[in-house]
């Protein structure tokens, strides 16, 4: 019926998994960099700004960033194709208790992904776009003062809340996504399957808490306690 769509269901899932895992890898680097924001304000400013400058000039990081943009686009498009196909093939019941047999977040990867995408639009607008195309003030060492932008962004509690909730959407996406990707790529040895599951759970917790704690910390230390 639907055979204009040449790639097999399994190839599409492989593509999801590869792009998803690249995004997972990127999140680790991104988090490690951002942890500098948890330093005392003066130190954080110097360290974070010079780090940002360093990254923006590095050819290796440039390549990674193009792979990153491509991964996001391919992951989202493939997600859309998969989700639409699944909507079409799925049976619908008058009374449906199938949810008892699986985790809610495993059944709602499309919705969680959409939440992440909405978040990414704001995230790119407020930091990535500002850094690349905005006119940023310079700090004492002559680096673009991204730190000031970050601190200013978390001025409002509702913005911080939006960030934290988005990180939970990401967290649940990862909680299913990480091990699902390993399965899609064909990891079937029972021992390593259970290792990967444990690792994926730990990974998801660290990423979620790590990213969520930064806006809360900045909001509390820079906006609530000092003003």
């Amino acid at each position, binding site marked *: *019926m*639907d*055979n204009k769509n040449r790639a*097999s*269901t*399994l*190839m*599409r*899932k*492989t593509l999801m998994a590869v792009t998803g895992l690249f995004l997972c890898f990127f999140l680790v680097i991104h988090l490690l960099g951002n942890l500098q924001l948890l330093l005392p304000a003066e130190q954080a400013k110097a360290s974070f700004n010079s780090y940002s400058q360093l990254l923006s000039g590095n050819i290796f990081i440039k390549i990674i960033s193009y792979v990153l943009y491509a991964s996001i686009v391919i992951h989202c498009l493939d997600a859309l194709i*998969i989700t639409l*196909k*699944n909507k*079409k*093939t*799925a*049976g*619908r*019941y*008058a*009374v*449906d*208790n*199938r949810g*008892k*047999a*699986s*985790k809610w977040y*495993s*059944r709602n*990867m499309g919705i969680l992904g959409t939440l992440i995408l909405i978040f990414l639009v704001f995230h790119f607008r407020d930091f990535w776009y500002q850094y690349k195309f905005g006119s940023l003030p310079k700090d004492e060492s002559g680096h673009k003062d991204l730190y000031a932008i970050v601190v200013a962004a978390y001025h409002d509690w509702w913005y911080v809340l939006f960030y934290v909730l988005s990180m939970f959407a990401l967290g649940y996406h990862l909680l*299913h996504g990480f*091990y*699902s990707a*390993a*399965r*899609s*790529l*064909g*990891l*079937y040895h*029972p021992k390593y*399957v259970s290792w990967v599951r444990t690792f994926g759970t730990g990974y998801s917790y660290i990423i979620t808490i790590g990213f969520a704690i930064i806006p809360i910390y900045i909001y509390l230390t820079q906006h609530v306690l000092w003003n």
Partner: protein
Amino acid sequence: MKLYLKIWRQSDAASEGKLVDYELDNVIPHMSFLEMMDTLNEQLVLKGDRPVEFDHDCREGICGQCGMMINGQAHGPIANLTTCQLHMREFKDGDTIYVEPFRALAFPIKRDLRVDRSAFDRIIMAGGFVSVNTGQAPEANGIPITHEQAESAFDSAACIGCGACVATCKNSSAALFTSAKISHLAKLPQGKMESRKRVLSMVKQMDEENFGHCSNTEACEVECPQQISVLNIARMNWEYSLSSVLKK
């Protein structure tokens, strides 16, 4: 006990179906779910109504013919059980029970609770044949197979093709069924020889039958009467990628 049944009635694939209310008295807790349906049908026939059609054969949990969505769960409320092995003692007097057919784009409804699962047969056919001498029993140790290998292949071969995995999957994916068939043959030396070709053609057929993408929710393993492991799916994915890459 007395039951209030809401059963899907549909006269053929082309027509619209709907849930119809029935009351059934004197249900004995020891009855199987299918015996309860028989009792209802007896009453319908005596009244001159058309009985509710449903698939069944062995009634001992081995053929995979029976299959109903009972209160929104494949094969009813108990995990890892066929409908024929579900007993009325799992329900209470006065319960309302919804009975629907297994649904999927790939499983058209033939009538009432009876669905066309021939897509499964076509997936198996796409796998081709294994050359096994079916004459005299061959020498048992002619082909060395370890006990663990045999057990593992048998675990995959235990799939009875009931379709609960598809019915319970939010995407109506046939990944568990197809992967069980692929793994069962790939795990034994007789089937391994052609496993590369087999996985490609079975997956192609699976897609042509309009089953969905597997999301690894693992609901299928929970509802599968044979507890076929989701790791079969991972093995299929591995065999598929490898075979696609190595294909000449």
